[in-house]
């Protein structure tokens, strides 16, 4: 059975390594924080100005001066730091943040990503996404493999306005884990109960299959 959003987050959490500073985007990426593997320590950065972001507050802890980039109320953990937006993006562009997880509407086999604008619809803006994808070395896209119409979101070429070019290295969807290498999606792992044919059928871009493809270990 394909993964749900929590399953995608759970699989991405396995990419976390001890000592990582991590920036999580809005949507599925946010859920990654619920699945930190035991025995490792990571710190979450939110680009509006906090390192060491903690869980949502209790009603009594709610502080209007403490939010994440999704404008949700949060808490800070021991060892947290607050900083201004220029400093925050210095951390991001300066590659001090070790891993970035974000959602996407489309990803191309070249590693291009589109996730901020649909022509003809209300444009809300790119927020920090362009800065994040242009700079981070370790960018993982978390998304469903196909859109609501059942069309592939893994394409030869993005059709929507781009957020960044040749920047995505790994994609985790409800069907599979893929690396992006030499202009192709390289199939690494399958979701439980999903076949190679299922992934092929849902992938418009070039899909490379090398040897046996293991099932995700969740």
């Amino acid at each position, binding site marked *: 059975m394909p993964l749900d959003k929590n399953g995608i987050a759970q699989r991405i959490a396995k990419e976390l390594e001890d000592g990582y500073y991590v920036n999580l985007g809005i949507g599925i990426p946010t859920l990654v924080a619920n699945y930190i593997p035991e025995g490792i320590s990571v710190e979450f950065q*939110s*680009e*509006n*100005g*906090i390192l060491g972001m903690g*869980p*949502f*507050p*209790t*009603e*009594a802890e*709610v*502080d*209007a*001066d*403490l*939010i*994440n*980039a*999704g*404008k*949700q*109320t*949060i808490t*800070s953990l021991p060892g947290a730091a*607050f*900083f*201004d*937006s*220029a400093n*925050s*993006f210095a951390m*991001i*562009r300066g590659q001090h943040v070790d891993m970035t997880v974000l959602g996407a509407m489309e990803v191309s086999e070249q590693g*291009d990503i589109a996730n901020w604008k649909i022509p003809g619809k*209300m*444009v*809300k*803006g*790119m*927020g*920090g*996404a*362009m*800065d994040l994808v*242009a*700079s981070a070395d370790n960018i993982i896209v978390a998304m469903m493999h196909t859109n609501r119409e059942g069309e592939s979101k893994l394409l030869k070429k993005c059709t929507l*306005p*781009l*957020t*960044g*070019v*040749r920047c995505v290295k790994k994609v985790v969807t409800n069907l599979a884990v893929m690396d992006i290498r030499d202009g192709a999606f390289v199939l690494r792992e399958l979701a439980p109960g999903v076949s190679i044919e299922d992934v092929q059928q849902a992938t418009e871009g070039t899909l490379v299959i090398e040897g046996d493809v293991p099932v995700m270990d969740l």
Partner: protein
Amino acid sequence: MIRKVVKDAETAVTGLKDNMTLMLGGFGLCGIPENSIAAIRETGVKGLTCISNNAGVDDFGLGLLLQTQQIKKMISSYVGENDLFEKLMLSGELEVELIPQGTLAERCRAAGAGIPAFYTPAGYGTEVALGKEVRWFKGKPHILEHAFEADFAFVKAWKGDEAGNLIFKGTARNFNPMMAMAGKITVAEVEELVPAGELDPNFIHTPGIFVQRIFEGKAYEKRIEQRTVRQAG
């Protein structure tokens, strides 16, 4: 000591004129200069260009200046939370320039730091890069971005002193320190204004040199956009 304290928001916006460019601190509704926005609305000035990460919500923050159609143009990174904004934008009554958040922050910082322009990788290969100079450094493409210019910057801090020194709280800091640096006239409103000497110089976030006018704000609402909580215990 240089006199910076003004008695209220109304006095702090003296000199504001039609068609000026303003910077306004805040991320969402967190750390916005509530009192100054209300005072700007009262002046009735029109044709404003506002540089601010977001555009408020329908009835709060910069949404209040959208209601009165005092804003001609918004320069922001994300404007998603505002129906009125959408309506004004689609009808052509409001001009909008969307720029990456890190670029927005750095264009403010550069303005205050005497850096006329800089190269950044953000936006290369996207529509943000259209018409901009591209240069490669260390094997990667970058685009040239320019410092902003702003007639006024309106910022909000937690504590401030008579010398204009500011301390921010939590994530309400966000764009406020860079905007404070960048305004030709920077107006700081604070929750608590204290005499010089009461704030420990070791813990000042924005040194007073960047602040021209300071006042203690009143009746902060500090509205929360997404109130998310967990169960206690």
